């Protein structure tokens, strides 16, 4: 008996030890270390991603596996990133949004990816790959990182679910909830909601439709006393400060996990579905290693860790399924799944003229 006990103890301890080292290295079990300098001739890359959009341990994991150094910078918006690039900064991997990628391709700022290195793409959700054709035909330049949509987050105890389901986006103009709503302070998303509420395309250039959307927004602004916010909305909804808000799906998933009174709804009128993808700019210093980094972030382990840490929907089918399964982190969390057959859901297209026009109008809406 004593021997058995000792043996069990030893077995337990050694299993734990193995388990701990396996966990702390967080490497995909099958891969071994590669020396980047030997294989690719360079061992340092500059990565530019959105803030709070990654599990930092993944970066250390990559560095260990490739014996390389990753300089990781963050931006707060696509536009800030673009402006910074104009100054000539050289990055190896950037993670912009779909419309920004469209713009960068049209302005010849990106280089095609080495598809031989992108082995993990095969495990991707086919829907996200199909969406890619809208901004990167044939997926030559990008590999998706996260995707999601935009929708309504509402407090079940303060806002009637029926109202939300019946009115969709128009619930933001329902005077019952005056003073109790957050409106996203971005010309793009702000107008998207208005366009969708009126049944138009969010990429429309039709002057009448634009005017109608402007009127919709003015009415909303004048009668509803909205609080215009960007990131403060997350903390605000977690603390139940207001009853209803427009939010990005990943942030919403986080809010729903933190505050059980909150629910998510994607209006039938349609919404914006978006993808953030990884690209390699033309002036990258070490493109081969950049491609490796992209493939690394597309792996099961990385997608799992990142999605867990941030709350945004993974682009891999296996991770999505695991997250929404019975013991997954986002079980029952509506915000995590991207609606796949919303016929009225659209991807943003880059349109400079439209951006400028809407920009002016948006400022007009708020200044009263």
């Amino acid at each position, binding site marked *: 008996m004593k021997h058995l006990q000792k043996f069990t103890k030893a077995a337990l301890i050694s299993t734990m030890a193995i388990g701990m080292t396996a966990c702390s290295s967080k490497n995909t079990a099958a891969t071994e270390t590669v020396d980047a300098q030997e294989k690719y001739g360079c061992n340092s890359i500059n990565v530019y991603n959105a803030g709070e959009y990654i599990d930092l341990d993944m970066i250390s994991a990559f560095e260990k596996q490739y014996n390389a150094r990753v300089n990781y910078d963050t931006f707060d*918006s696509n536009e800030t990133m673009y402006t910074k690039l104009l100054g000539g900064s050289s990055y190896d991997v950037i993670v912009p949004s779909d419309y920004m990628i469209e713009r960068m391709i049209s302005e010849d700022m990106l280089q095609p990816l080495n598809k031989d290195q992108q082995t993990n793409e095969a495990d991707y959700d086919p829907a996200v790959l199909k969406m890619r054709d809208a901004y990167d035909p044939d997926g030559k330049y990008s590999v998706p990182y996260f995707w999601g949509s935009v929708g309504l987050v509402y407090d079940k105890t303060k806002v009637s679910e029926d109202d939300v389901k019946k009115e969709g986006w128009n619930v933001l103009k329902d005077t019952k909830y005056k003073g109790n709503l957050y409106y996203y302070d971005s010309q793009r998303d702000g107008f998207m909601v208005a366009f969708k509420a009126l049944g138009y395309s969010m990429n429309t250039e039709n002057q009448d439709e634009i005017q109608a959307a402007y009127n919709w927004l003015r009415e909303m602004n004048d009668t509803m006393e909205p609080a*215009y*916010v960007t990131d403060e909305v997350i903390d605000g909804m977690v603390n139940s400060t207001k009853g209803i808000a427009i939010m990005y799906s990943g942030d919403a998933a986080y809010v729903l996990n933190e505050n059980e009174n909150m629910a998510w709804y994607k209006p039938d009128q349609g919404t914006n579905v978006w993808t953030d993808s990884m690209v390699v700019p033309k002036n990258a210093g070490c493109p081969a290693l950049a491609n490796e980094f992209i493939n690394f972030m597309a792996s099961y382990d990385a997608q799992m860790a990142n999605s867990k840490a941030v709350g945004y929907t993974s682009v891999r089918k296996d991770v999505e399924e695991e997250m929404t399964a019975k013991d997954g982190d986002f079980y029952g969390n509506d915000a995590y799944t991207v609606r796949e057959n919303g016929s009225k859901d659209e991807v943003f297209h880059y349109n400079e003229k439209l*951006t400028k026009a809407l920009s002016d109008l948006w*400022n*007009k809406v708020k200044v009263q």
Partner: protein
Amino acid sequence: MIIVPMLMIVLYAFTVQGNDVLTFQFTLNNFIRFFSDSIFPTVLWRSLTMAFFTTIICIFVGYPMAFAMAKLKPRSQAIMVLLVTLPMWINMLVRTYAWKGILSNVAVSSEIAVYVGMVYNFLPFMILQIYTSLSKIDENLLIASHDLGANDTQTFLRVTLPLSLSGVVSGITLVFLPAVSSFFIPKLLGGGQYVLIGNLIEDYFISTGDWNFGSAISLIMAIIILISMYVTKKLDKEPREVAD
């Protein structure tokens, strides 16, 4: 180095955006656009008034503070200066979020919240400038004034105040100018209802990518500020005559 950025902005303000980063098609379009749409002057006016009131509050709160500081022992003065400066080293974002948290427990209008945040941010500048000029005032001048029969109030009004005015003017410069173009504090504490000229400029530069218009707005703002500063400087002229 200092002037060059300014020059580039002037260039942009007067040109139109072509396909390249900068073209030389000169035009006054940007300026016309600013004045033709009523929202732009409205926003500028709002920013100016907000900056104005912030500055006034800073003067009225800051002057007594600087005055009290100048009366302390030298060592205490040094400590006070550090104490007043320290809050500035905490990142503005963090400070403002902290106020947001504190004010959420107190029922104040968003207008008051914004002014609290703005004054908090700029007060140290005002205090330091006034303090610097106050502490330099020769004790003997005050004693002489008393000997000549003036009481405390008269001494203050006729001797101390005029001599400290240049400090007040520097303080105004350090507060009013940045206050006009600040937008983050009003945005965060004012619930986003505030659209100020700083928002607009940043927006046009980054979100819209219209550097030309952004520069034009910036120039217009700068000119207006220069005019108001010129008027304030006039105040600084007189004390020299008094001291002489």
